């Protein structure tokens, strides 16, 4: 995480080349007021970074803009120094759970296979090694026994594990997750954290929107405090301070602290 304002173009070039995912000057607006404004974010390779901020702060928007799902008004993204178009295969994504049609006729194993659709392309044949990878990914999140269930029959936590398995099947270097712990049971939260930390220990980079302030220091290495603009960003030890949190949440921090649900968004 880089907090210092980089004014020198060449230095910034070098910083971006070394970063798995770097966002510069990102502004997104759905109407006349920006949802995020001039956001800079530089992920550290091999680190787990949390995006934290109040409801409606633009956390999901920042993720979507960084992934190229929505077109920003301004700003650019580099992935390992290259363009998103060239480096797309190196990013895996776990969307917010609510974005899915739960009655869709699809089994758990088929959802995991979707993680390989990009690699398979339109006509690539599904081979034994693809199926083996899908089963392995389910196993890593403890869902191997559920492979043939319809996705809507699972509990919220189980569904979230399946989506993580689908991201694992992408065999990416960067894992981007939107509120992976929202509405899941404690056992699932533990399982997901273990998988994410395993990825980090294998040198992968993790970026997650996180709504529970209490667990930020336990789970994450770096943190981005967001409230339309970046309030502070850097290693948790330096950045996750009372003052910065007050600045990010305004007067709402006490309620946010007492009831983590109230800042989920």
């Amino acid at each position: 995480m880089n907090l210092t304002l980089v004014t020198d173009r060449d230095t910034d070039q070098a910083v971006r080349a070394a970063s798995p995912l770097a966002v510069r000057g990102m502004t997104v607006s759905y109407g006349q007021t920006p949802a995020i404004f001039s956001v800079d974010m530089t992920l550290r390779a091999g680190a787990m970074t949390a995006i934290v901020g109040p409801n409606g702060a633009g956390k999901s928007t920042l993720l979507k803009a960084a992934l190229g799902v929505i077109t920003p008004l301004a700003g650019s993204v580099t992935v390992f120094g290259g363009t998103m178009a060239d480096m797309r295969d190196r990013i895996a994504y776990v969307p917010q759970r609510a974005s899915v049609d739960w009655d869709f006729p699809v089994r758990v194993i088929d959802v995991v296979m979707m993680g390989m659709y990009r690699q398979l392309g339109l006509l690539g044949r599904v081979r034994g090694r693809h199926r083996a990878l899908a089963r392995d990914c389910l196993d890593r999140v403890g869902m191997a026994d559920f492979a043939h269930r319809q996705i809507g029959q699972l509990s919220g936590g189980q569904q979230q594990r399946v989506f993580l398995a689908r991201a694992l099947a992408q065999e990416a270097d960067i894992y981007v997750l939107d509120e992976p712990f929202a509405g899941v049971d404690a056992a699932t939260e533990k399982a997901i954290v273990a998988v994410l930390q395993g990825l980090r220990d294998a040198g992968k980079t993790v970026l997650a929107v996180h709504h529970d302030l209490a667990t930020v220091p336990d789970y994450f290495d770096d943190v981005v405090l967001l409230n339309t603009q970046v309030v502070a960003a850097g290693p948790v030890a330096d950045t996750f301070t009372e003052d910065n949190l007050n600045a990010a949440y305004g007067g709402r921090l006490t309620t946010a602290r007492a009831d983590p649900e109230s800042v989920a968004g």
Partner: protein
Amino acid sequence: MLADALLLQLGYNATLVAIGACLLGIASGVAGTFLFLRKRALVSDAISHATLPGVGLAFVIMVAMGGEGRSLLGLLLGAGVSAAIGLLCVQWLTRRTRLGEDAAIGAVLSVFFGFGVVMLTVIQTMNAGRQAGLESFLLGSTAGMLRGDAILLAASAAAVLALVLILRRPLALAAFDPGYAEATGWSLPRIDLAMMGIVLVVTVVGLKVVGLILIVALLIVPAVTARFWTERADHVVIIAGIVGGLSGFVGAAVSATAPALPTGPIVVLVGFGIFLFSLLFSPRRGVLASVLTHLRYQRRVHVRQGLLALAQGQPIYETLTQRLLTRAGLILPDGVPTAEGQAAASKALLDETRWAIVRGDQAYALAATRYDGLTPIETVLTPDQLIEIDTKISAPEVVA
């Protein structure tokens, strides 16, 4: 007579119509599946109604160029172009204005259809060309079906099947999880465009057979029907194709048995018949199945509540509970539990006590989500875990 029709023994034209309707049914069932899964079923209604002004305009242009205006290919080309324009209008209205898709569909559908009806009326008073028969685009007409028409249907069906086969992955992904599709590099607008293009082809070639008012039924009913029988998208596509093909074939055969039976509406009614059967009798999603499941569930709840009442020495008031327990031999008609009932009651109470501990302990959070007041706990926990839980039960009298 019907048997003759089904075995294609009613002459050349009837055979041609049956094969054509069957091919159209397969193509529309397959094409409509992704429309249904993407929750865009009504867009096909806008597309089909938007064909009408194109038919009229094509006729006028062909007559102005000195022809009779009866070239089917020309008319269908016009239909396709105006349907495409209608579709673009729906997309533009949805994306660029504050109108929802439902409002956009309603607006486009009625405006285009109204314009088309005006055109046909004007053409009828024009007295040029051979306009008789244009109105068959509304409800379809297979009386004069030619070999060329059947070949056109076969070619379009083949093209639709090939396209769906090639695009099955992005189509499924866009329908299930559009945000993930985009984040993994698929272009959602292009996937939707391809889907609508496929539907447009089916709609246009189906105009002569079932007409623009009923083609939407042929696109959507097979997919809805197929959904009753499977939990897999690829199987929905295949079953929808079979249902569509079957409706087309049987419908055409039935209509061939009497001169007064119109093909398109009969095809749709046969499809509806298969839908109704599925709605009632599908083993997992059917009405009958869900009524039975509910009744079985209700009985289990009553038995469980009754057993817990017995274990705690409370009276049972509800007659249904009493009846169920008596029938199962758990209580005598006067309400006194049998030995069997006694055992089942203490087992139920032990189950509840164990569950209470599981639900109060964070270490069993995942197992606790399985609690529904009915599931026996030994189906969720291992014997070792049960022993551990039993050590925490303080009241020894319930350990029967």
